[in-house]
């Protein structure tokens, strides 16, 4: 079970990065490209957060690491998902 969770955490990088992908990019790019870009954003975001928290002397916690992405997601995800579904139907 922990192995599966380990993989899901890494496979979820695009979900973590998706709220930070600009809407204009989601409209213009193919969903596959959006997934790739979201994955990079998720990875870079996590890495940056971890370096910054270490620098600040704050111990890593899942909640703190997810916070920026989750905050934005709560605001943007419904509209982003609508667009992705629309784009998938279109392609």
């Amino acid at each position, binding site marked *: 079970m922990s192995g599966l969770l380990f993989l899901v955490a*890494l496979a979820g990088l695009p979900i973590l990065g998706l709220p930070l992908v*600009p809407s204009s990019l989601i409209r213009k790019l193919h969903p596959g490209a959006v997934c*790739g870009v979201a994955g*990079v954003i998720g*990875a870079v975001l996590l890495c940056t957060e971890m*370096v910054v928290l270490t620098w600040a002397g704050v111990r890593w916690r899942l909640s703190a690491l997810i916070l920026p992405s989750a905050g934005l997601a709560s605001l943007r995800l419904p509209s982003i998902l609508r667009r992705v579904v629309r784009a998938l139907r279109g392609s």
Partner: protein
Amino acid sequence: MTILAFGLVVYAAGTARATSSDLLLFWGTKGQRFAQAGAIDVGFLRQPDHLLMHSDYPPMLPCLFAWATLTAGRFAWGAALLTLPLFLSLAAISFFGFARPALGLRSASECTALLVALVGFVMIDTFMAGNADPLLAYFEILALSALTFGSGKAGEDGAAGLGLAGAVLTKVEGTVFAALLIGSFLLFGEGRSRWRRAAAMGAPAAVALIAWIAFCRKNGLTSIYSLSSQRPATITHLSVVVSGLLREGSYGAAYIPWFVVVVLGFRWRDTASTRMNVAVAVGFLGFVLYMYLTSPTDPRLWIIWSASRLLLTPLVSIFFAAMASQIPRGVGASTLSPEIGLPSRGDGEASISGR
């Protein structure tokens, strides 16, 4: 073919047939230790016994492993092997997503299958499962896809820039790749806007690199990024290096991966995009050669251990040069240049010709 190639990669990685001690002694250990410490464990990295872990090596994969460890509750060594197919699939999805509008569904699907087979074979042959190389390849493939197939819009440049930032934070050679790609873009791109575009693309990578080096300096982590510790190249071991590179570059398969990418561009056309990708490949080969020539002792073992992995980057760059030759005539021809109000030249040059 994609599914077959991908299935073989999953099998080889999942059964530990495609991994090496790097996962146990370097990437995995760092990730597990960082997760236990809840931080980038500077004290652990500074210990003299851990010299071969390169204290200032870019932190992306150990951080991602730590993230997964925090989520799962423990470091899952078996699951870490499957990061190879995971990052390969992300690379393939990114490639297909950027290639689909430029090549059409059929061609993009065929090229994606070839990419998965080619890169998958090299990754298995060079024991990359659980290492940072698949993650680096994902970032490189994303950046090259955005530049080769994109239409030169700010969003695609941004995607390439993010890929380069990821590459810089993943491995030292990611910085070399980023510098070469930006340099080649400047050299072969056209139009006055290329300087602005190159600056926009390079900015995330530059910020990432400067921030990481600043972190290392502040915490006394000095190894690879300490310029004073670098040795000049000599030709003492030139013959050993050249013969070693030729041997490792064959991938035990009579250079078939290289023949495949050369044949793939059977209609090689001289476009700016082709030149840019070839320049990245040639520049990276030069870097690899230079790096081994700096070795104060016989670099034979060093080459056996790392050369075949390093050569994946030029191989992928030549693959993209071949792709640039395949882009149908006229793609991007409708892209208007905002600077001069004329259509760009097409012929696959849309992404790097001046807007």
